[in-house]
């Protein structure tokens, strides 16, 4: 006869309630681990998907994710000229937050280096890669923009031509892929009035300078577009992504490009580390610590529950001692219940989690590695937290049965 199961089936209502409670608690622990994984995965996802061998960014910055990086647009041509470089792509990247109807539309805008890169590498669930150099975009499905939708960003209207899956910025926002020209236009979108004010300011500044006074024709230039001014550079891009002929040349090529005084070069691994050590580090350790805290809380609560369960049975335990039950019988009763409770809680956590986690705004990734780890933790918690109950059961005198 299994006493543990007999007791559970006698008090089945209470057991189910307790198991559900522990299950929910474990689900939170599990979810916290999943969120942690999600943050780490999301952080490096873009870097992995972009699959560049080298990242060329503004000198001395840790860009373009950890901080802002600005490099001249023509840098990609310069990089392409370096022996060993197969492809050099412009990389334009920034996050915008706009209103879409009454919904806040927050997206990371990533410029594709048209025509080298039409976005063929992006995993699409619907639609197609970019088909023209401007006014098309591929939206991640988390942005919830339907295929074919026309959206207005800044002064232009863009059409959603493709829907991607799992393309998320390190901050968890869905990515919108535009051609880099469009991405720059979005980034540098300035209201007409601001443009006019800027031109007026340029003109009046010019009038005060010798050059302006001596060559009034120059002042005409002041009212032209910024891009057309010979003295003002084209808008800058965030970085240049270099793909090599042979990945083994990375070190040599990085040395050459790194020698240019206006840029710094990172390998993909270095870039990944910059992110993990930098922008997501705090979130990561925050969630990690919270997870540890939750595990401790779960242990305490389970210990409390198992202790109470044992206390409730103390009279029966004393009675069993009185009629001669050995310690192993009593130990079996308490430990088996602890393990059954832990296992049921874990199962409930898993099943409910599978239903709930996909509905979270950010990815919750439950790896089997984490599941095994949590199962081991629950096992240890169950055993350890029955310690108090076991101790109580061992010291209770059979006399108590008579009280």
């Amino acid at each position: 006869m299994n006493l543990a199961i007999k007791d559970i089936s006698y008090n089945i209502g209470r057991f189910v309630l307790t198991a559900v409670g522990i299950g929910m608690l474990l689900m939170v622990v599990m979810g916290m681990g999943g969120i942690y994984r999600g943050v780490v995965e999301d952080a490096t996802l873009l870097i992995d998907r972009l699959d560049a061998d080298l990242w060329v960014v503004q000198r001395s910055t840790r860009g373009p994710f950890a901080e802002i990086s600005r490099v001249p647009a023509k840098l990609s041509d310069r990089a392409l000229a370096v022996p060993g470089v197969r492809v050099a792509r412009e990389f334009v990247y920034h996050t915008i937050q706009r209103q879409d109807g009454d919904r806040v539309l927050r997206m990371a805008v990533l410029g594709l280096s048209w025509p080298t890169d039409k976005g063929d590498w992006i995993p699409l669930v619907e639609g197609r890669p970019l088909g023209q150099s401007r006014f098309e975009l591929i939206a991640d499905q988390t942005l919830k923009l339907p295929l074919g939708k026309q959206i207005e960003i800044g002064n232009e209207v863009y059409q959603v031509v493709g829907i991607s899956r799992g393309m998320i910025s390190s901050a968890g926002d869905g990515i919108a892929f535009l051609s880099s020209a469009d991405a720059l236009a979005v980034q540098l979108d300035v209201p007409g009035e601001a443009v006019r004010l800027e031109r007026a300011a340029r003109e009046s500044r010019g009038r005060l300078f010798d050059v302006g006074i001596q060559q009034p024709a120059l002042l005409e230039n002041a009212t032209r577009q910024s891009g057309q001014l010979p003295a003002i550079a084209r808008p800058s891009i965030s970085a240049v992504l270099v793909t090599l002929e042979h990945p083994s040349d990375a070190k040599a090529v990085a040395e050459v490009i790194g020698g240019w005084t206006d840029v710094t070069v990172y390998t993909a691994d270095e870039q990944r580390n910059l992110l993990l050590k930098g922008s997501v580090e705090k979130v990561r350790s925050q969630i990690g610590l919270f997870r540890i805290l939750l595990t401790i809380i779960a242990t305490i609560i389970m210990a409390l529950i198992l202790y109470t369960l044992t206390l409730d049975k103390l009279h029966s335990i004393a009675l069993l001692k009185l009629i001669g039950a050995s310690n192993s019988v009593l130990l079996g009763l308490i430990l088996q219940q602890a393990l059954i409770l832990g296992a049921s809680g874990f199962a409930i956590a898993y099943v409910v989690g599978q239903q709930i986690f996909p509905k979270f705004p950010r990815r919750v990734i439950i790896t089997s590695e984490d599941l095994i780890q949590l199962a081991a933790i629950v096992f240890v918690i169950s055993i350890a937290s029955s310690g108090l109950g076991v101790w109580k059961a061992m010291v209770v005198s059979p006399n108590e049965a008579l009280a």
Partner: protein
Amino acid sequence: MSTPLPADDPSAKIAIKAESLTKIYGAGNTEVVAMRDASMTVMAGEVVALLGPSGSGKSTFLTAVGLINPPTSGKIYIANQLIMDGPKALTNLRSFRRKHLGFVFQKSNLIPFLKAGENVQIACELNGLSSRQARIRALELLDYLGIKDRSQSYPSMLSGGQQQRVAVARALANRPSVILADEPTAALDSFRGRQVMELFTKVAHEQGTSVIVVTHDHRSLDVFDTLYEMEDGKLTQKAKEPLAVAH
């Protein structure tokens, strides 16, 4: 480890023998001598009543010979073995209890999460019977005590008298040499109380089990073979009253 019992009368089998048991609770100012120099010899199949006012030390004596509550001094022999030498146990008390002693107490002491049958069955299983054998034995015992039909009921669904019968069945589970009962009928009306007392006599006479019953119920004294009285920790044998002898 055990010393053979020095039997006074070699023809009768001695089931239990308590020699000069003394129990002192606490020390110094709070010292209570609950039992002093109490001796008792119970033969196999003998049914003994233990009477006495509240606080006189009856439970102290019963739990001492029940190997639950070691005496401060004195010797206890059960089944021809010296088990307690003062507070010192000479064997594994828990397994000895399992094999040789059965207990019945005032409140039914059944395990609430086990059905009546299972309460008896567990006692057999603890003593090494397979669960099938144990189940058969449990049903036999419940049948013997006339409550086989309630074997699937949880204790909470049984009346006090039925619970006590199950408790008696459990006490009998491992064919003990001695059953110790502390006010087993206190929670029962006099009719059912008497039924339980008669059950003890039946068991003792049919199975040769010795029974020591602590009781306040003077109406059932006629069923006992021997009466003892405890007063202020002192144990004395009492002559059976003429009325009781007439049974």
